């Protein structure tokens, strides 16, 4: 089965014949029962929409020809992630876009070409079908933009109250080209740390969408697939040492993991970290540190110094990396620690977060 190339984002559409078909209807236990109701839901909601030969067979499993995999490289990358975000819809995305891009990006961080996703839904009894349709449509568009296909899936329904509206699990398969070997422990002294754009947008968008802090800002989630960007970066430097996407725990979590894995130190330059003024504003109002905010379309790359310019240029020429910047470097000491050179000239440690970051009043 050949995968169509990644397409541009298009506007959501309703599937012909389903116009208004789901309006006013909700998920019932029958939809998870294995009978006709479930089969119809899967057919109408997912199979027609995700529209690929493997899925259309409606078998219990998807079958892919190994030759199609081998064409891309010599190792398979395999990952899974579950998505439980609340609220389901937020500026810049929804649980569906997260479910696709999150797994695509986890694969992409190995340098893999993402190919196939599975998708498991756990639906709360009473969830409006229109909501599910919106989410499914987002997933369709996200798959198209990333160049992946959802080839198999599962749907379960639980009693009202046993799940918060909708949970999604996606697992993903990708293939890593021969010679590409990216891992956290490979960071070396003298390497530079690159980021592909503004940090903290997703964290702020979610905070805002939850509504309890009553802030008005146009900040949108940065949720996007990074596989295209990674391939462009690898074309500029085949020996990128580390790639990680800065999701929960933000930049701080990822860099601490890399520093600990490699047994080296990382020094960040606060003045070089790209932050939108509104993200700074929200952080100042609430007393939050942007280094801990989640991102859903940002990666950190640790790259040998001699390739820094070439990789940065490749990133900045790619739509997913327009605002890329060099934000730090890898050092011998202090071992396993991330240091921030503050905008004021002093230095401090950037530690891993303990628990969730909470707004302060002091």
């Amino acid at each position: 089965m050949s995968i169509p190339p990644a397409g541009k984002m298009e506007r959501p559409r309703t599937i012909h014949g389903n116009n208004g078909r789901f309006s006013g209807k909700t998920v019932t236990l029958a939809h998870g029962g294995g009978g006709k109701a479930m089969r119809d839901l899967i057919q109408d909601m997912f199979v027609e929409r995700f529209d690929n030969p493997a899925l259309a067979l409606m078998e219990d499993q998807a079958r892919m020809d190994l030759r199609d995999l081998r064409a891309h490289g010599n190792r398979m990358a395999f990952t899974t992630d579950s998505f439980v975000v609340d609220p389901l819809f937020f500026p810049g995305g929804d649980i569906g876009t997260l479910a696709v891009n999150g797994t695509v990006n986890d694969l992409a961080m190995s340098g893999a070409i993402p190919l196939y996703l599975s998708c498991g839904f756990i639906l709360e009894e009473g969830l409006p079908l229109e909501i599910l349709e919106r989410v499914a449509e987002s997933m369709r568009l996200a798959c198209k933009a990333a160049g992946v296909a959802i080839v198999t899936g599962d749907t379960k329904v639980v009693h009202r109250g046993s799940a918060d509206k909708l949970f999604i699990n996606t697992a993903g398969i990708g293939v890593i080209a021969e010679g590409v070997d990216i891992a956290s422990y490979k960071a070396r002294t003298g390497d530079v740390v690159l980021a592909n754009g503004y940090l903290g947008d997703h964290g702020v968008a979610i905070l805002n969408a939850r509504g309890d802090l009553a802030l008005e800002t146009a900040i949108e989630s940065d949720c996007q697939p990074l596989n295209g960007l990674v391939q462009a970066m690898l074309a500029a430097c085949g020996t990128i040492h580390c790639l990680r996407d800065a999701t929960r725990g933000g930049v701080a979590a990822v860099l601490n993991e890399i520093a600990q894995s490699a047994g080296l130190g990382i020094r960040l330059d606060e003045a070089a970290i790209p932050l939108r003024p509104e993200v700074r504003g929200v952080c100042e109002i609430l007393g939050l540190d942007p280094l801990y905010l989640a991102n859903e379309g940002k990666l950190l790359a640790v790259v040998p110094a001699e390739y820094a310019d070439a990789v940065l240029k490749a990133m900045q020429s790619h739509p997913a990396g327009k605002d890329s910047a060099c934000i730090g470097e890898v050092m011998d000491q202090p071992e396993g620690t991330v240091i921030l050179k503050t905008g004021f000239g002093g230095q401090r440690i950037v530690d891993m977060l303990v628990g969730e970051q909470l707004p302060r009043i002091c």
Partner: protein
Amino acid sequence: MKYVDEFRDPGKAASLIKRIEELARKIDLGQARPLHIMEVCGGHTHTIFRYGIKQMLPEAMELVHGPGCPVCVLPMGRVDDCVALAEHPEVIFATFGDAMRVPGSKKSLLQARAEGADVRMVYSPLDALDLARRHPAREVVFFGLGFETTMPSTALTLLQAEREGIRNFSLFCNHITIIPTIKAILESPDLELDGFIGPGHVSMIIGMQPYRFIAEQYQKPLVITGFEPLDILQGIWMVLKQLAEGRHEIENQYQRIVPEEGNRTAQDAVNRVFELREFFEWRGLGSIDHSGVRVRKEYAWYDAERRFSIPNLKIADPKACECGDVLKGIIKPRECKVFGTSCTPETPLGALMVSSEGACAAYYTYGRTEIAKPGV
């Protein structure tokens, strides 16, 4: 950001630091120790650690982190009271974020929420009032904590509730006052402080007058200081200048925000709603006279302590806890026997490890590894 970025300009830091170094060298108070300057306020502690200011300062002086962090000094007994309130099924317990993590004798508010209590984080007491409007069948209790900075907002919210006739709203009042705290520190026999960086936002409300006793009775300089890194450097410079010139006065570095008389409108609202308690319990410092406020009886309806029965038990800190000595500047966080071992941000024993402005938490998170002094 206007009125913020200008006061974070690193270009101005270098010369200020050189001047601080020169002054610190010149000052000789006849002591065999570095100069000790206490920043009272948790917000100052946070800025100092966030910008790595400590290492920029000369060795001839040391910053001592004071007790001005209302979350840090919340006694376990009061947290237990919060949990008891939150566990009433009809109550929505509304609180500022950082208070949720403070451990009580059995659990924190965060843990109580995990067990089913309706605890909600709010940014403003007005958000808590809004919860009361939107949930007329529930009882909304707002956990009011903070120094004089935050008293006006709590008071005004209570007055707004009264104006609108909102009856399902009450306040669990834990507001504390700064002056008795500073006095308790000055009265401490082991005291080794030479000067103070004074709380900028408390002073915005109370003005400069309440601090005069520090200069007159105790002959120590105090400079009311803002919260940006240049503010703190300038504040330190002003304290050192006083020491070098043999002065002890109350000065104001934060003049763009702090008027000499404070904010009368805010003070009036506070005085209308609150009155001083005879004494109040502080974690680590014990009982301090007149250091807290409670709701006046004219507003009894809005006082959660009158509306609900709470355990109101005095719970001692764990024996190993040396928070009191750290708060008074007698020992540094690293010198506490349990620092970093059984007491960490993940498993805090005492208040100073709980909040991110607590001296111990700040030390642990931002500065536990010795970082070589950067070339300025």
